[in-house]
C-alpha cells in the first residue's frame, strides 16, 4: 500500500496549514514534490491517486497538474538524473558539446536511462544559471561551469554513492 512515512505526513500537514481552510488543493505541487522524492523519483498513477485522496481532490486534478509541470516524471528514471540546460545562453557557452559528451560517455540518448538504472539524461530549458553555463541540475543542486573533466568527476561521484 502506498503511504507517506510519518515525517512526510507531518510535513504535508504543515504545508496545508499555510493556506486558508478549504484551500488544501494549494498544497498539491509541494506534496507532489515530496511524493516524487519518497517514491523512486517518479509519479506512478497509484501515487497520484494517493495524493488526491490525501488532499481530498479528484485524481484528474492531480494528473492534469503532474503532466503540466516539467519537473514531475511520469515514467521511471535512473537513480541519478542529469538535466542539462540547452537554451540560448548555455548554447553560447558550449552545452551541445557537453550533451554529446555525456551521451557518448553513458552510451545513451537524451531521454534514456542506462541499462543498470544508474543514470538518466534529460535536456531541459533555461534553469536560471546562464552566467555559470554550461550547467545541469543533479537532484537538489546545480552543477555549473561544466567541462568534460567535471562531467567525468560527477559521473564517478554518482557511481560511488
Amino acid at each position, binding site marked *: 500500500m502506498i503511504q507517506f512515512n510519518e515525517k512526510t505526513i507531518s510535513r504535508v500537514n504543515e504545508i496545508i496549514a*499555510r493556506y486558508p481552510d478549504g484551500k488544501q*488543493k494549494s498544497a498539491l505541487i509541494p506534496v507532489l514534490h515530496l511524493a516524487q522524492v519518497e517514491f523512486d523519483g517518479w509519479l506512478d498513477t497509484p501515487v497520484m491517486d494517493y495524493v488526491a485522496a490525501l488532499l481530498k481532490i479528484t485524481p484528474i486534478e492531480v494528473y492534469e497538474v503532474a503532466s503540466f509541470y*516539467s*519537473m514531475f516524471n511520469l515514467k521511471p528514471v535512473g537513480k541519478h538524473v542529469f538535466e542539462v540546460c540547452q537554451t540560448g545562453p548555455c*548554447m*553560447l557557452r558550449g552545452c551541445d558539446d557537453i550533451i554529446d559528451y555525456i551521451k557518448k560517455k553513458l552510451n545513451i540518448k537524451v531521454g534514456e536511462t542506462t541499462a543498470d538504472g544508474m543514470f538518466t539524461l534529460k535536456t531541459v530549458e533555461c534553469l536560471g544559471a*546562464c*552566467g555559470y*553555463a554550461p550547467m545541469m541540475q543533479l537532484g537538489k543542486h546545480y552543477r555549473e561551469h561544466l567541462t568534460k573533466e567535471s562531467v567525468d568527476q560527477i559521473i564517478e561521484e554518482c557511481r560511488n554513492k
Partner: protein
Amino acid sequence: MSKKLLLNKAHVEGIRHFDVYRREGGYASIEKALKMQPADIVEEVKKSGLRGRGGAGFPTGMKWSFLAKPEGVPRYLVVNADESEPGTFKDRYLMEFIPHLLIEGMIVASFALGSNNSYIYIRGEYDWVADILEEAIKEAHQNGWLGKNIQGSGFDCNIFVQRGAGAYICGEETALLESLEGKRGNPRIKPPFPAVKGLWGCPTVVNNVETIAAVVPIINEGGDEYAKIGIGRSTGTKLISACGNINKPGVYEIDMTISVEEFIFSDEYCGGIPNGKRLKACIPGGSSVPIVPANLLLTTAKGEKRLMNYESLSDGGFATGTMMGSGGFIVLDEDQCIVKHTYTLARFYRHESCGQCSPCREGTGWMEKILQKIETGKGEMKDIDLLWDIQRRIEGNTICPLGDAAAWPVAAAIRHFRDEFEWHVKNPEKCLTQNYGLANYADPIQVAG
C-alpha cells in the same frame, strides 16, 4: 562606480544569517515602517519612482495603490521568484546571498498592503534556494519579526515559501496564482486584475523579488532620495545578470546612468569579449526582448550613446531599439550563429507555451520547426517570410504576454539579420560547418510589417 543599494552587503561574511544581517543594519526599515501609516508607505514607494523589476517595468507604487480593500476579505502579497526568463539569474543571486533583504522588504510591503499571510512562489528548480529562504524565515520568527504582533505593533505577519515545478509560464502573475492554488499554470483573462481578484479570489499584489528588496532602501532613505539615483524614469538601481560571450559573467548592480559600452567592456562589469572576438549582437533584457546588432546596441539610431536604462534601451522602438526587460543581458560574439540561437529560443517558447491559446500553442511549434529547418540547411527563401508572418499573427493575439515574448525574438532576428537567414538558405551545406560571422551592421535590413 555605481551606487549599490541591494548588494552592498551581499559579501559580508555570514550575511545569510539573521544576527549578522541585523548587525549590519538589517530590519531597520521595518522599525521605521511600523511607525508609519500604510498609505504613507505606499506614497513613499510612489515617490521613489520604483518600477517593477520582473520585466514589465510597471510603477510599483501605482500597482500597490490599485489594491482593492473590501471589508472582511483578506489581502495577499505574493512575491514572484519564478525567475525563468533565459538570461536572467539576478533574483536567485539576491535570495541565495542576502535572503533577509527579501524577507525584510516583504514584511514592510505586507504591512503597507495589509497582508497577514504572504507567499514567495519560487521556481521549483531553485530547491536549495527555497531552503535558504525557509531558514531566513525561521530566524525572523525566532527574533520576533514574523508571527503574531510583530515587534509589539499589533500587526501579524507570516511568510511562506512555495516551490513551482518547472514552468516558465508561472512567471506570468495570473498563471503564478493558478499554480499557487494547485492548478496548471494557465494565465487568467484580465480583467479582473489580481489587485481586485487574485489569490483565492482575494485582492492580491504580485511583485518581483528585486522590486520587493528595493522597498528596503526606499523606506530607509526615503522615496525622494531613491528617486535621485538614476536618470529620468529609470530611478534607483537595477540588477543585471550578464551572460554569454563575456569575460566576467555574473550579477551586477548598476545605477542606470552607465552606457551599454561601459557595461560590456569595462573591467568593473562584463570585462569585454573573450579571446579578442568582436561583439556581434546582444539581447539586453532577457530572451524575450529584441536582439540588436552591435551598432544599434552601443548607439541609438539618433547617434546617441545608449545607456543601461528603460528609456535609452527602448529608444527607437522595435525598429532600432530593444528593452530593459528583466535585466538578463545576453552577449553574442562574432562566432555565434543568429539562426541557431534564435532556434534555441523558439524551442524554449514552444516548450513553455501553456497551450491555452491557439496562436501561441500552434505558432511556437511552427516557428521552432521552420527555424530548425533553416538551421539544418533545409530551408527555403519563402520560409523566412513565413516565419515573419507567423510571429506577426501570434503577437497581441494571446491571453498573456508569452505569445509576444515568443514572437519578438524571431521578429528581431529577421529584422536585423535577414541576410544571415538568407545565407543559410543559399548555402545549405556550408551552414552546417561554418558560421556567417558578422552581419552587415551599417545597413540593418528592414522588413515591411
